């Protein structure tokens, strides 16, 4: 299931519902992404404070693209269920941004697919962050480290984009 929403989500409630009643599930893996109140300032290792951020997205394509990534995960691993929740709008330090949960009979598939989903989501789902800094609003640059994280999974890509 995919949800793109402005509202916060309750991790406990989501996990209680996730895969409920499916006794083939042997393991659930969860990643929750949060807003930090510090960010890299462009110089290696240094940070600067961030007040809050606004996450813009492309309604329609966001859901389609996450759906594609989810389908790719299901093609690669034997998954019983998947859940992706991604928020948009204004978010402050400590707020939840994203939740990825995967369920499988075995933990390896759950762990690996969860990591795959968040790595690919970051480089493919059409979201953009505008950070509020003391110098004003600043659009966040894409990170080479994110591309590298996504590229780890690229070997067996069938569609490629």
């Amino acid at each position, binding site marked *: 299931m995919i949800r793109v929403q402005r509202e916060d989500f309750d991790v406990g409630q989501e996990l209680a519902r996730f895969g409920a009643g499916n006794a083939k599930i042997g393991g659930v893996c969860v990643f929750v992404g949060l807003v930090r109140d510090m960010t890299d300032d462009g110089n290696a290792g240094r940070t600067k404070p961030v007040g809050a951020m606004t996450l813009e997205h*492309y309604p329609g394509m966001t859901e389609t*693209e996450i759906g594609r990534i989810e389908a790719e995960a299901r093609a690669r691993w034997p998954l019983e269920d998947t859940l992706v929740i991604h928020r948009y709008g204004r978010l402050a330090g400590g707020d939840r941004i*994203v939740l990825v949960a995967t369920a499988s009979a075995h933990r390896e598939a759950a762990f690996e697919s969860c990591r795959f989903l968040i790595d690919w989501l970051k480089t493919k789902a059409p979201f953009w962050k505008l950070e509020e800094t003391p110098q004003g609003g600043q659009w966040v640059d894409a990170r080479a480290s*994110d591309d*590298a994280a996504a590229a780890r999974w690229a070997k067996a890509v069938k569609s490629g984009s």
Partner: protein
Amino acid sequence: MTVRILYFAYFRERAGRASEDVSPPGDVTTVAQLMAWLAARGEGREKAFADAALVRVAVNQNYVKMDHPIKPGDEVAFFPPVTGGATGGGAA
């Protein structure tokens, strides 16, 4: 031919608009040609496309390359590299 153009993030700010319906001439048949035609219209659009390496394109909500053909009624979105997910780098 009429196509719908969408701009996101700082492309929207630089172009001074979130969307527009345009009717490019018949010799504009690919994404690259559409981009050049839009940039030539100016009014900030050229600033959105200033760094070609940072331009990502989706036609009808699918990522495409610059040589992708344009058809009447297409929704063509221009945006910078995406930055969703958690704040930290994927490898962090």
